[in-house]
């Protein structure tokens, strides 16, 4: 249990750090959400001042931070200026959609990357390996933005897939099976973009660590005993190469979340991305902080999951020295 305790303390420190960073940066900002109102002659300066004091924008930073922490503990996460709602109610719904998108993309990306990487490693130096390396280099230099726009262009021209949003307009009239299909059709473009964007890095890492293991003496020995090729690659080499890959799994959550933000904005997926962008443009401070907190939380969960998997996969790793 010491392990969980330490992780919890670490996570809380990280969340405090991230939120403090947000609040610190906010003091650098000239102007805020209510500044535009000051320009409107129909709103009296008194009203604006009252609103500001209602949201405590006239208080010093440490006081605001303290009140925000209290509001987090109450489960409100501060109030949105634009929606006049507790931030948590806004963020949680959006976070669910982002989670659906990113977890699906992550699972698919790993399912594709592991066999491809192992295959490429087993052909190391041959033309198949070179082709795959060239492919990953090319894919690596195509930004998500371009991939998403290209896929949209393709989808619009072929009419094969619905474009924009998470569900069609007639979603509520469909049966349960129809609803699932509708959602799946809307998922294709964003998930494909995310998978394509994260594949090259994953394939490269899988290849690199498997190549190393394939040269090890125990693989030679297994080969000498007449163990089959597929069995050598997946039963013997892959588990030995798994540790750095599992660590990579935790780290790749960050890249995936960043990619997901952009993709969500482009295809109109109602996730955290559009919410953050909107909040940035309107200076809805507590929403920005809430979304950043949520993404930090995802990151923490990702690395926790990676650590737990590491313990399961490798008996040498003990809970107390993770």
């Amino acid at each position, binding site marked *: 249990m010491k392990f969980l305790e330490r992780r919890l303390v670490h996570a809380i420190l*990280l969340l405090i*750090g*991230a939120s403090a*960073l*947000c609040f610190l*940066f*906010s003091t*650098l*900002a*000239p*102007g805020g959400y209510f500044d535009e109102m000051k320009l409107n002659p129909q709103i009296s300066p008194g009203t604006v001042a009252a609103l500001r004091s209602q949201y405590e924008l006239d208080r010093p930073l440490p006081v605001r931070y303290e009140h925000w922490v209290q509001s987090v503990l109450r489960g409100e996460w501060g109030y949105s200026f634009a929606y006049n709602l507790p931030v948590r109610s806004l963020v949680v719904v959006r976070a669910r959609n982002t989670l659906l998108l990113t977890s699906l993309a992550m699972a698919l990306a790993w399912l594709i990357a592991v066999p491809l990487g192992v295959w490429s490693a087993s052909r190391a130096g041959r033309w198949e390996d070179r082709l795959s390396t060239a492919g990953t*280099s*090319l894919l*690596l*230099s*195509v*930004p998500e*933005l*371009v991939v998403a*726009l*290209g896929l*949209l*262009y393709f989808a*619009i*021209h072929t009419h094969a897939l619905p474009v924009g949003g998470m569900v069609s307009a007639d979603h509520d009239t469909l049966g349960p099976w129809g609803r699932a299909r509708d959602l799946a059709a809307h998922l294709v473009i964003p998930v494909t973009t995310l998978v394509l964007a994260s594949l090259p890095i994953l394939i490269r890492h899988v290849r690199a660590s498997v190549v190393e293991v394939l040269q090890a003496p125990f693989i030679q020995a297994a080969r000498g005993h007449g163990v089959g090729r597929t069995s050598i690659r997946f039963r013997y080499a892959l588990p030995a190469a798994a540790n750095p890959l599992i660590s990579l799994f935790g780290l790749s*959550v*960050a*890249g995936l*979340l*960043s*990619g997901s*933000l*952009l993709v969500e*904005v482009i295809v109109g997926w109602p996730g955290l991305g559009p919410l*953050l*962008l909107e*909040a*940035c*443009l309107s*200076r809805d*401070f507590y929403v*920005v*902080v809430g*979304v*950043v907190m949520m*993404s*930090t939380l995802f*990151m*923490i969960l990702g*690395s926790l999951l990676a650590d737990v998997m590491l313990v399961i996969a490798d008996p040498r790793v003990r809970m107390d020295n993770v």
Partner: protein
Amino acid sequence: MTSRHKAMVAASLLLALHLAILFAGFMAPSDPTSQNRDFPLVPPTSLHFVDGRGKFHIRPFVYETEPVPEGLHEYRENHAHEYPLHFFVSGFPYKVAGLITWHRHLFGVQAPAQIFLAGSDSYGRDQFSRILYGGQISLAAGMLAAGISLLLALLVGCASGFYAGWIDESAMRLAELFLVLPWLYLLLAIRAFLPLHLSPSGTFFLLVAVIGTIGWARPARLIRGVVLSAKSRKYVTASRCFGASDTYILRRHVLPHTYGILLTQAALLVPQYVIAEVTLSFLGLGLGEPMPSWGNLLANLQQYNVLVSYWWMFAPALALVLVSLGYLAVADAFHQQLQSGSM
């Protein structure tokens, strides 16, 4: 093709791209900001070699583009007259590297024909010229931001590697925070708290500063590692015994070890930061019109009709992909050199 050849090819591609972008005025056939309201969204002008009578010309020529009467953004070629492509023609004045005013351009055609190598945008501005000029902004932003990041990384990495103790501890905790946060979320959050409306140059430097502050953590950790290992060498101890000061040891014995990492990280960071600028400008948080940058050129594609019907608006993406391809290949080559210990 050996990896050495590959690196050379990538480096020459990069050099060519950078030269073309640096001398954008010379390469561009028309002024990137001059609007041509009669010719919005013209598809790329095609270069012909064979004329209507079947005669082959060595010098390529174009036909005059004219709007189809009654058509919306529809154009056709007027085959009545050929306009050969001329080199080193006189055109709009520009500054060479910001200093000398000149008016010669690499290529051009005689009016009334026009040459839009990458089509024109919805204001009738030549997109090829805008990509070149936009490249100046995007690449400069990427390089400056990478410079800031590496400088920060060098300072933090050297300080925490060399002095250890609480400096090391707190710097590395901060680096962890920056590493663990998704960069785009961080970037947007920082951008959210800074003024939205500024003068173009103000926005540019603000953007560079914001982008530059997010990526310092990874190089800082790498540099710290190198400094740690360099510091424990025997010749460092020896020179300390001879009475060398900290600054002398840092400058003379420690810093040279970090150059390889700095170069590799620079080659990795520049394309990443160019993409960051493009992303921010695309989302409307970066540089705005009329200043061209690759991000706001691509932002045209946010309009549904542009995305659907005008494929040449994807042209800036090609430039972006070429630049990152070049940089990543060079970074790979640096990395391999570093691994083999010859750098």
